[in-house]
């Protein structure tokens, strides 16, 4: 070899093995600062810091906030949002977005209310009804996924369409009369408690665990990262991208279905608007937690931090006696300030931020 390449310290034992290299700054040379390197990690740390700060401030401001009862209240209030956000996380990991949440939840809420013992139909399917509802949610997700991948159009619009379709299905199922849930088992989800927390909260905890396992140990989860990280490369490597994208949407839908069951048990009847506001909150929670919209970053657990940030903030503002007229403005400012403050010291090391 006659042209010495940029020289190397170990030119002598060139053919020998390179020293072991783990991740870390030393290995990251050669890249410019605004590459999205670890942006999600910073975001997660930032929101974790913001969460801790918020908890501290509210604890000082209000004794009620520190009470065990309030902890339970926060957890109960976070349950449905958490489950929905777990589902949404899979879609965000793909780099896609899902706007169908409220429609799917509406349709599923009516479905579960009509399938278990209720005031309108003679059915009493119990667990089966719940399972069928989760399956319906998955089917809606499947629809979003199939439409996005087969027609090759942005998920923003397919899911907007599926939202409308879900809403339509919910309206048809509703047909003017709200089915009141009379199934004591489902009713118990919201009212009976185990170790202080409602069953709904435990279901949520289980769902988060399942979500994390899916993310960590299944193809759907791992490929969601691959697709979100670099879809074209995943395709080049022989990953059946369309299939796993669709699967991720379906998984998300199943979680929305479960969320609808939980909400229905809390509300006591089949409500078309059971999911109102959830879509936006779930996206916000995920992004705040570090599951960024660019895809492949963050994950279920990170998103949960975002869920807690939002829930604690809402709870804390009420307890701190902030006027309902001002709450909205205060909440928006706090989210931005908290995230900005927490990222501030490291802002120059962040990648391209969109």
């Amino acid at each position, binding site marked *: 070899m006659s042209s010495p390449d940029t020289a190397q310290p170990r030119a002598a034992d060139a053919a020998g093995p390179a020293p072991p290299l783990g991740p870390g700054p030393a290995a990251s040379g050669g890249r*410019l600062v*605004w*590459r999205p390197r670890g942006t999600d990690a910073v*975001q997660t740390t930032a929101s974790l810091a913001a969460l801790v700060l918020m908890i501290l401030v509210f604890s000082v401001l209000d004794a009620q906030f520190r009470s065990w009862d309030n902890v339970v209240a926060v957890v109960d209030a976070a349950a449905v949002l958490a489950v929905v956000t777990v589902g949404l996380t899979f879609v965000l990991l793909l*780099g*896609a*977005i899902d*706007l169908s949440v409220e*429609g799917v939840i509406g349709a599923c809420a009516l479905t579960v209310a009509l399938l278990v013992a209720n005031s309108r139909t003679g059915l009493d399917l119990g667990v089966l009804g719940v399972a069928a509802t989760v399956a319906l949610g998955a089917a809606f997700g499947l629809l979003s996924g199939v*439409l996005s991948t087969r*027609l*090759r*159009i*942005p*998920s*923003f*619009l*397919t899911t*907007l*369409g*599926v939202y*409308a*379709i879900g*809403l*339509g*299905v*919910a*309206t*048809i199922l509703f047909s003017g009369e709200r089915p009141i849930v009379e199934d004591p088992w489902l009713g118990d989800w919201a009212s009976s408690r185990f170790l202080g927390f409602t069953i709904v909260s435990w279901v949520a905890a289980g769902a988060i665990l399942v979500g994390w396992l899916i993310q960590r140990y299944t193809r759907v989860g791992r490929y969601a990262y691959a*697709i979100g990280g*670099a*879809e*074209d*490369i995943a*395709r*080049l490597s022989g990953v059946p991208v369309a299939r796993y994208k669709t699967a991720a949407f379906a998984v998300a839908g199943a979680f929305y279905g479960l969320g609808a069951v939980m909400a229905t048990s809390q509300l006591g009847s089949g409500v078309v608007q059971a999911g109102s506001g959830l879509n936006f909150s779930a996206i*916000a929670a995920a*992004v*705040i937690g570090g599951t960024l*919209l660019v*895809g492949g970053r963050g994950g279920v657990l990170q998103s949960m931090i975002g869920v807690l940030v939002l829930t604690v903030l809402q709870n804390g503002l009420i307890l701190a006696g902030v006027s309902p*007229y*001002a*709450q*909205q*403005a*205060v909440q*928006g*400012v706090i*989210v*931005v300030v908290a*995230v*900005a403050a927490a*990222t*501030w010291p490291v*802002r120059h090391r*962040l990648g*391209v*931020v*969109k």
Partner: protein
Amino acid sequence: MSTDTAPEVARPSEAPRQPDGSSRVRRELVRFMPLIILAVLLVLLSLRNPDLLTQRSLTTMADSAAPLMVLAVGITVVILCGGIDLSIGALASFASVLTALWVPSMSGAVVVPVVLVCALAGVVQGWIHIAARVPSFIVTLGGMSLWTGLALAFSGASTVAVTDIAALRWAFTRIGGTVPSALVIALGVVVVLGAVMRFTPFGRWVASVGHAEPAARLAGLPVSMVKIAAFGVSGACAGLAGVLLVARTFSGAPTLGESLLLPAVAAVIVGGTAITGGHGGLFRTVVGALIVVLLRTGLSLIGVDAGFEPIFYGVLIIIAVSVTIDRSKVAVLK
């Protein structure tokens, strides 16, 4: 280093590669697809309800489309930069409240301060996004709450009626008895902004930032300024949309424009602008806005049953976008 690595090849553009002649026809067809789909939709809907094609009905539709168009055109600039602005609906509401409050003292000139205030609001959001490196999604999410909160505070949480509506007559009248002035204003915005994008470097800068921000920055483009300006434009458009809304509803209210956010983004996408930034344009958004308005209002008028209306809407909007989108240019993955 090889410059044509895998990702380049894997672009969907490779798939339908065809000899020159027919591919040019296809490309042109794709370019005009949004217009074609608009015409097709109009014809289909008017088959069910012939009244839809009357001049009165069309001008009415144009009226409805104008504020949406202005909003959508504004957010197009932000989306082209690769960002998102969730605050436009709330900002339009805030603008409507300001307009209603200021008309008594300022009459028709109210549009100037309102647009300026909203542009400033956009600039502030853009600046926070740049300076603190907070994702635009989060900044504008916060902005959304803040502007709504301020609108609630300024209006005393109620509707502010405009008694002297003649002051805003210019924004809601028929020029020559037929042409809706709101549409003319909206198109004026599009033309002016379009000219700026086309005849000054701004348009290229926006596209460069959207396509490849690192490269744009290293070429010495004023990336931060471009992004802040984009948010400013988006804010200004939201302000103008707020004024148009007041002219139409004779009052300002803290939730007046909220519901226009999703349709505005939908209009951008239906027009064929990539949600990931870079590719797209304002004129596409104009057609997108018309399609969205047609679907939003047209469907309820052809008398479909409850429940089926949203289903039709969902199906049609999916069909519309699957036909209009230019798959060779837009990174359709997201």
